[in-house]
C-alpha cells in the first residue's frame, strides 16, 4: 500500500486489469498506431490498494460527497412524490428515482405511502454517469425487502464516506463498543448517512456523538477516548 | 388600568359608538353565546373570537379549535347546522365544490392538460380527457390531439366548465363534457366577488334584451350575445366546427349596447354587494331602461345608488 496524489502514475499492469475508484486510464503518445502501453494515473489522493493477483486496483480516500455506484446501500430522503414513484435525495450530485413498485409486496394498487421527508434505506440499482441514479427497496430477484424500506423514528447522523465504510467493517471498534453499553439499531448508508435508533433519546444522542467523534474526518478518536466520551455524556444527561 | 385614563381624553375614538365592544373579548356571556346558535339569526364574528365549546359543537369552515374552544378564523356570519358551527367569510376567494359551474381562463397548456385560472386558491386543471372534441361525444382521443391541444384551447381563452373532482392536494379538476360548456365567444367577462353569485336552478340566463349571461360560481360572469334556440348544440342550426372557433360572430350595435349595459349594471350591483340573481338583473335592466339612463352614466355614484335603492325596495 502506498499513498498517491492526483496525476501520479500507477504501476498497474495486468492482462485483465480492472480499475476501481480514483484511477483512470490515459492514452499516451501515438496510441492508435503502435502498441504503446496506455498508462494508469490516479485522480484522487489516497491509499493505493490492489487485489492479491494484481488485477483489481483502487484508491481509498475520504470524502463527503457521494457518487452513486450500483449495488451500494444508501439512505435517502423523499423530496418529491411523483405519479410513478419518488424522488430521493442522496446527497449526491443528482437526486435519485425510486419506483413505487420497487418495494416488497408493492403492486399497482398497493403502493407504499411515503411522505415527503421520510427516510428510506435502499440499494442503488442503476448508476450511470449520464442518467439519474435509480434505487430499489427490495431484492430484484426474490422481491423480498431484505431489510430495505422506510426507516421510521430513530435519527439520522451524517458522517464522512470513510466513516460509513469503517462502520461496515466488522473489525471496527465503534459498533461493538456501543452495543456493549446499550441496545441499538443501525442502518449504514454508503452515502455518508447513518440511521441509528435506540430505546432512549439519550442513547441515540450518545451514538450520534460517538459516530461524529470517531469520524476520521472529525476528531478521529480511538476506542478508549470514545468510550470515555460516551460515558461522560451519559452521566451528564442522566442528571 | 393606566391605559384607560388616556382614553377618556379621546372618548370619540373609543368605546362610545360601540358600547358592546368594551368587555366583549373578556367575558362573553352565555346568553349571547346561545343567541347566535339559534337558527336563522346571523351573528357577525371576527378572527380570534370565541364561539362555543368544542365539546358540544363541531368545528366547520372558518373556525379552529384551541383548548376545547371553537374560535372563528375569518370575519363573517356564524352559521349552524345541527352540531356543526361554521363561519362564512363575507369576502373570500372562490371555494370550489363538485358540480359547480365556473367560468375560467386558460393560463397554461401542459401535457394532456390545461391550467385554468378560476379565481380559486390554485389554478384548476382541465384534462384533455375531460373535454369534448369536435366530431362528437363518442370520438376517441388520439395522440394527434395531444399535439394540437392549442387548436382547442390556448392561453387566454375563456371557457365555461363544471367542477368534476378534486386532486389529493385540493386542486380542482374541470370538465366541459356537456353541450352547454366549452369555449366562450361573442361577449365580455365581468368579475365580481364570488359570494354574490348564489347557487341558482340555472346559471345560464337569457335576458329579453338579446343578452345571455353565464353566472360562474367563482364570481366570473360571461355576458354575451344571445344564441338563438335553433342554433344551440344538438339543434339543426348548430355548427359543430364553431365549438372551438376563435372568431366572434357578427354582433350588431344594439346588442353591443345591451351587453355593455348589462355589464355596467353588474358592476354597479357588485360594488354595492347586491347578490346577483336572474330576478335582480332583470329588475335592474328594466329600471335602467325606465330611467332612460345612458350606459356610461350607470357607473356614476348617484345613479348607482338610485338603482340599488330601487332594487332593494322592489325586493
Amino acid at each position: 500500500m502506498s499513498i498517491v496524489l492526483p496525476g501520479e502514475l500507477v504501476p498497474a499492469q495486468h492482462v485483465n486489469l480492472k480499475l476501481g475508484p480514483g484511477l483512470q486510464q490515459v492514452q499516451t503518445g501515438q496510441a492508435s498506431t503502435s502498441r504503446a502501453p496506455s498508462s494508469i494515473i490516479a485522480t484522487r489522493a489516497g491509499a493505493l490498494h490492489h487485489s492479491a493477483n494484481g488485477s483489481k486496483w483502487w484508491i481509498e480516500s475520504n470524502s463527503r460527497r457521494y457518487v452513486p455506484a450500483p449495488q451500494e446501500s444508501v439512505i435517502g430522503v423523499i423530496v418529491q412524490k411523483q405519479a410513478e414513484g419518488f424522488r430521493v435525495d442522496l446527497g449526491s450530485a443528482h437526486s435519485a428515482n425510486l419506483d413505487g413498485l420497487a418495494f416488497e409486496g408493492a403492486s399497482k394498487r398497493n403502493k407504499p405511502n411515503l411522505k415527503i421527508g421520510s427516510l428510506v434505506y435502499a440499494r442503488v440499482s442503476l448508476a450511470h454517469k449520464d442518467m439519474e441514479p435509480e434505487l430499489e427497496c427490495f431484492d430484484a430477484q426474490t422481491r423480498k425487502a431484505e431489510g430495505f424500506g422506510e426507516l421510521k423514528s430513530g435519527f439520522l447522523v451524517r458522517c464522512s464516506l470513510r466513516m460509513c465504510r469503517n462502520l461496515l467493517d466488522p473489525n471496527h471498534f465503534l459498533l461493538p463498543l456501543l452495543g456493549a453499553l446499550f441496545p441499538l439499531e443501525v442502518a449504514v448508508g454508503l452515502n455518508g448517512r447513518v440511521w441509528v435508533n435506540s430505546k432512549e433519546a439519550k442513547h441515540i444522542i450518545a451514538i450520534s456523538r460517538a459516530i461524529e467523534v470517531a469520524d476520521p474526518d472529525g476528531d478521529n478518536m480511538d476506542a478508549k477516548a470514545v468510550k470515555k466520551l460516551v460515558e461522560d455524556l451519559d452521566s451528564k444527561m442522566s442528571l | 388600568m393606566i391605559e384607560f385614563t388616556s382614553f377618556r381624553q379621546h372618548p370619540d375614538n373609543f368605546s362610545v359608538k360601540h358600547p358592546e365592544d368594551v368587555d366583549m373579548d373578556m367575558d362573553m356571556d352565555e346568553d349571547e353565546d346561545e343567541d347566535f346558535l339559534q337558527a336563522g339569526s346571523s351573528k357577525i364574528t371576527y378572527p380570534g373570537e370565541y364561539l362555543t365549546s368544542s365539546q358540544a359543537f363541531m368545528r366547520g369552515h372558518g373556525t379552529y379549535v384551541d383548548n376545547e374552544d371553537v374560535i372563528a378564523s375569518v370575519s363573517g356570519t356564524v352559521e349552524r347546522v345541527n352540531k356543526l358551527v361554521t363561519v362564512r367569510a363575507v369576502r373570500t376567494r372562490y371555494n370550489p365544490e363538485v358540480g359547480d359551474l365556473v367560468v375560467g381562463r386558460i393560463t397554461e397548456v401542459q401535457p394532456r392538460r390545461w391550467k385554468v385560472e378560476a379565481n380559486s386558491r390554485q389554478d384548476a386543471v382541465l384534462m384533455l380527457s375531460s373535454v369534448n372534441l369536435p366530431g362528437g361525444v363518442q370520438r376517441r382521443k388520439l395522440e394527434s390531439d395531444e399535439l394540437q391541444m392549442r387548436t382547442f384551447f390556448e392561453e387566454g381563452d375563456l371557457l365555461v366548465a363544471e367542477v368534476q373532482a378534486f386532486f389529493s392536494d385540493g386542486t380542482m379538476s374541470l370538465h366541459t363534457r356537456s353541450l352547454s360548456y366549452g369555449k366562450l365567444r361573442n361577449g365580455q367577462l365581468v368579475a365580481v366577488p364570488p359570494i354574490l353569485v348564489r347557487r341558482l336552478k340555472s346559471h345560464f340566463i337569457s335576458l329579453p334584451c338579446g343578452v345571455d349571461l353565464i353566472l360562474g360560481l367563482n364570481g366570473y360572469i360571461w355576458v354575451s350575445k344571445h344564441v338563438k334556440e335553433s342554433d344551440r348544440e344538438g339543434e339543426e342550426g348548430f355548427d359543430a366546427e364553431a365549438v372551438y372557433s376563435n372568431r366572434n360572430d357578427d354582433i350588431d350595435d344594439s346588442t353591443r349596447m345591451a351587453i355593455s349595459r348589462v355589464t355596467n349594471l353588474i358592476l354597479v350591483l357588485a360594488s354595492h354587494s347586491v347578490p346577483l340573481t336572474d330576478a335582480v338583473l332583470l329588475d335592474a335592466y328594466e329600471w335602467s331602461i325606465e330611467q332612460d339612463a345612458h350606459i356610461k352614466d350607470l357607473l356614476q355614484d348617484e345613479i348607482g345608488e338610485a338603482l340599488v335603492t330601487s332594487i332593494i325596495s322592489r325586493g
Partner: protein
Amino acid sequence: MSSRIEILNAGGYRSDGRRQYELRTISIDLSPRGSGADGSATLSHGLTQVSVCVFGPREAKMRSQTFHDRANINVEIGIAAFSSSERRKRGRGDKRVLELSHTLKATFEPVIQTSLYPRSQIDIYIQVLQQDGGLLQACVNATTLALINAGIPLYDFVCAVTGGVHSTSPLLDLTLLEENDLPNVTVAVMPRTGKVALVTMETRLHVDRFEEIFRLAGEAGKVIHGEMKRAVKERTQDLVNAMQSVGKAAGTEVVDEY
C-alpha cells in the same frame, strides 16, 4: 435640532399635546380600492399612513417557491419617496426595507392558517404613504386588517404598538421625533391569548425599564385591537346587510348550504 423640543414637559404633555400613554388617532378604511385585490386596508396612526393590498391565496407565480404542505407568503414593501420630510428614494434592495418585509412575513406566517392552502401563494403588498414614527406598528396592523378583509383565515388579530422610555417615564405610540430620541420598543400581541408575535427594541434601555414598557405596550395592543375589531365588524355588517337586503326577494334561489 430636534433635541431642543421637549419630549415630555413638566405638565406631563408630549410635543404633540398627548399625555404619556395616549395613543394617536387611528383611522381605518377597508373599502376596496379598485385594484382587484382580494383584500385591502388603509390605516393611519396619526400622521403615519400605510396602505396594504392582499392577493390570494392564488396560484404561485414561481413553482420553485411553493411548499407542498402550506401556502407561501410574499411581502413586498414600497416606501414612497415623499413619505418622510426629507425626500428619499429607497429601492427594493434597501436593507431596512428587506428587513421590514422579512419581519412581517415571519410575523404573519404562524398567524395565517397557511396549511389550508398547499402550493398556493399569498401576496401582501404594502405602500407606505406617510411616515411619522411607528412604521412597523402601522404595517403590522394594516396587514392584519387587509388579510381579514381578504377572508384569509387567521388564528387571531395581530396588533402592534410602539413604546419608548423618556428617562424613566414610558410613552406609547411614538412620533418620528420621539422615536429618534428615545429607546423604543415595538410589540405585537395576539389579543386572544395575550401572546407576543413580535418584539423589537433598539438602543440602550435598562432591563427593568424594558419590562415595564413591554408590558405596557402589550396592554395598549389590546386597545388597538378594540379599534381594529370595530372597523372589521362595521365593514362585515355593512356587507352582510347589503346582501340580505335583496337576497330574500330572489324567488328562484336554491337553498344555499356551504
